[in-house]
């Protein structure tokens, strides 16, 4: 364009092209949304037709009916006479039981292995590397089936293995000593929880004071008193019994103690070992991401190594570690649905049985999705909160 081009024409063209862009945007949005709505409507009308032809009822009324499905491994009281709703709740509890304990164990194991990979001991770091490579490169379902087959290959309950006194491992599962929980025990646990919260608040106060006057203060005597001493006092005052119930072998089965079924145990072992391999890599790269200068600076200040790791390196490593860790936790939770392959009755397995019994596929799968979306959202919210807490505060 040369200067001879009249000014108004150029402005006009510009305006046209702008509105053209906006119009095109609007047009494409309407087209895409229209296609999406048409697709959903088409699928929906097909479904409505098919359901009426096959005489499958719709809606969630079936939840109130008798389930008639046995659940072997129910944490809550349950019998086949209960409703589908109750069965679903039992399934959700079973899912959470695997997911929560799995996340805790996988975090501990994965962190240890991640640190072992960084060890200066060649053998230890090599073994950790082999562990990680082996577990990461095999399908989880294969590992799960493998653990389950191994569990089934264990000796019968009568000839159970006893690695430690009171711990039995047989093809009926893992039996551990347990402590029968009564009302008194719950009070003591409540006291311990209160002590934990109190010492957390106290710790915050002490740190705030330290920031003000620079005097280091000890937290652990107070912490010990609040978390151990106070519940012990309550326990003594109420006369609560903490006797450990040792399982005994009697005939073909065992009495007393806590029993983990082979299905649950195999699922837990598979999920924990598989996820720990991924967590180990995350922890390793997190620690390696902290600049060496941070270590050198801590050493130059004369700090002990454990202190430097806890107060200098880990807080920085955690910023790198937490976001991928969140997705591993989500993966573990979603992977717990593989339970259906070994017959552990989690929410997916129960929904699947429901689907087969009632034919209400849409409702059953909608319930699975609802449960998992809720759990995923819960984990995400918690981890985001934690991430925001430890995030770098730019000053």
């Amino acid at each position, binding site marked *: 364009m040369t200067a001879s081009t009249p000014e108004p024409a150029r402005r006009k063209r510009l305006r046209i092209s702008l509105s053209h862009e906006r119009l095109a945007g609007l047009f*494409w*949005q309407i087209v*895409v*949304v229209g296609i999406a709505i048409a697709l959903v409507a088409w*699928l*929906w009308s*097909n*479904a409505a*037709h*098919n*359901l009426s032809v096959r005489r499958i009822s719709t809606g969630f009324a079936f939840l109130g009916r008798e389930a008639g499905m046995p659940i072997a491994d129910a944490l809550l009281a349950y019998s086949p006479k209960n409703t589908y709703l109750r069965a679903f709740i039992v399934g959700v509890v079973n899912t959470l039981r695997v997911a929560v304990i799995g996340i805790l164990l996988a975090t501990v194991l994965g962190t*240890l292995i991640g*640190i*072992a990979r*960084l*060890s*200066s*001991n*060649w*053998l*230890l770091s090599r*073994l950790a590397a082999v562990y990680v*490579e082996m577990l*990461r*490169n*095999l*399908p*989880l*379902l*294969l590992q799960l*089936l*493998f653990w389950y*087959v*191994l569990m089934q*290959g264990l000796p019968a309950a009568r000839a159970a293995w006893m690695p430690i006194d009171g711990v039995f491992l047989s093809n009926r599962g893992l039996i551990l000593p347990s402590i029968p929980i009564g009302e008194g025990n719950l009070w003591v646990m409540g006291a311990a929880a209160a002590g934990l919260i109190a010492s957390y608040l106290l710790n915050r106060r002490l740190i705030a004071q330290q920031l003000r006057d620079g005097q280091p203060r000890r937290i652990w005597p107070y912490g010990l008193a609040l978390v151990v001493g106070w519940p012990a006092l309550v326990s003594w005052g109420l006369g609560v019994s903490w006797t450990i119930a040792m399982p005994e072998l009697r005939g073909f089965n065992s009495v007393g103690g806590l029993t983990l079924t082979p299905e649950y145990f195999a699922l837990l072992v598979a999920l924990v070992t598989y996820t720990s391999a991924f967590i180990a890599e995350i922890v390793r790269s997190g620690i*390696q991401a902290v600049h060496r200068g941070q*270590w*050198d600076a801590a050493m130059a200040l004369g700090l002990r190594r*454990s*202190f430097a*790791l*806890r107060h200098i390196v*880990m807080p920085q490593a955690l910023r790198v570690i937490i976001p991928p860790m969140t997705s591993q936790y989500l993966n573990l939770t*979603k*992977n717990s*649905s*593989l339970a*259906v*392959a070994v017959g552990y009755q989690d929410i*997916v397995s129960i929904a*699947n049985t429901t*689907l087969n019994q009632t034919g209400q*596929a849409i409702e059953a*799968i909608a319930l*699975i*999705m609802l449960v*998992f*979306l809720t759990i*995923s*959202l819960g984990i995400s919210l918690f981890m985001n909160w934690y991430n925001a807490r430890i995030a770098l505060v730019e000053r």
Partner: protein
Amino acid sequence: MTSIADAPENPLPVGRSRSRRGRGGVIGWLRANLFSSIPSTVISLLLIFLLAKACVSLLQWGFWNAIWSVPDNQTGACRAIRGLGACWAVIPEKFRFILFGTYPFDQQWRPAVATLTFVALFFVSSRRNWWRKELVLVWGAALVAIGLLMWGGVFGLPFVSQDRWGGLPVTLMLATFGLAVGFPLGIVVALGRRSKLPAIRSLCVLYVELIRGVPLISLLFMASVMFPLFMPDGVNIDKLLRAQIAFVLYAGAYLAEVIRGGLQAVPRGQHEAADALGLSYWKKNGLIILPQAIRHVIPPLVNTFIAFFKDTSLVLIIGIFDLLTTAKTAIIDPAWQSFSVEVYLFVGLIYFAFCFAMSRYSRRLEAQAGST
């Protein structure tokens, strides 16, 4: 955190010494890497003891006590040493079924060639200097060839319906087609998620978050049970194809997130420069933005491929005959029922070979990216 600080050995990266290597041969190496301090020595000795013990019992089970072949299905000898020695005889007996499922026995060279074609295709696609437009044509030709081989019905090959396909080719097929179709889908969704148009953006977010929020099994259930309900009368889509559709949708959502990460890494200036040149939206993304974005995320893409390859084994739950399902079915045979560990190890080796190759490859790409 406390567990780290209290660990007896305190294995810290700072203690990792680089300079000690190469001082004084084997003994020097041993002293530096295994016996540098008292805790390290204790750990080394303990690990050597445990490792030796594990190796001995594994060798005993896997080699010395193992039975390598038995005359026609007489597994009595195998059962007699159960728990003491492996029964590798199950592998030669069953490997054809595990690898190719119920494909007609005399025609099994066809899935074998198809499998090799897949492997060759992966190999060719992994070479950096082969990444050009012709590769798309190679892919198209190879996939058509595989389809012709598997189905047959032409060139004098008898027709084999896909109900009889099974084993490794099915696993490779689910993974390859899932990724090949899911990848463009992922690109479109990733672009849609960054689009300025609110309706398109929210549709893409809805799709990605819904798929990523639920377990893959529920998607597969949907494909196997719900999908037929949503089709009009008379439309009957094969089970394998339905699972394949579920995998495409699944791969699309996960790949979209990886690609979105790459799109975010492309500097703003690139967009502005493309706009200044007057390129259209598609030209801008296809020629300027996407090539850079995808280059950024090749290592995580390969990791997604590995995860996806492993996830294809989940079709076991809806009863499609992939590699894991054929393995599990092979040991239903009463004579061989109790030798599942051996079969799982065999199948595990195959999965491991594929995944390990991919993970090595991804690491090499990462190293290359780091060095440039």
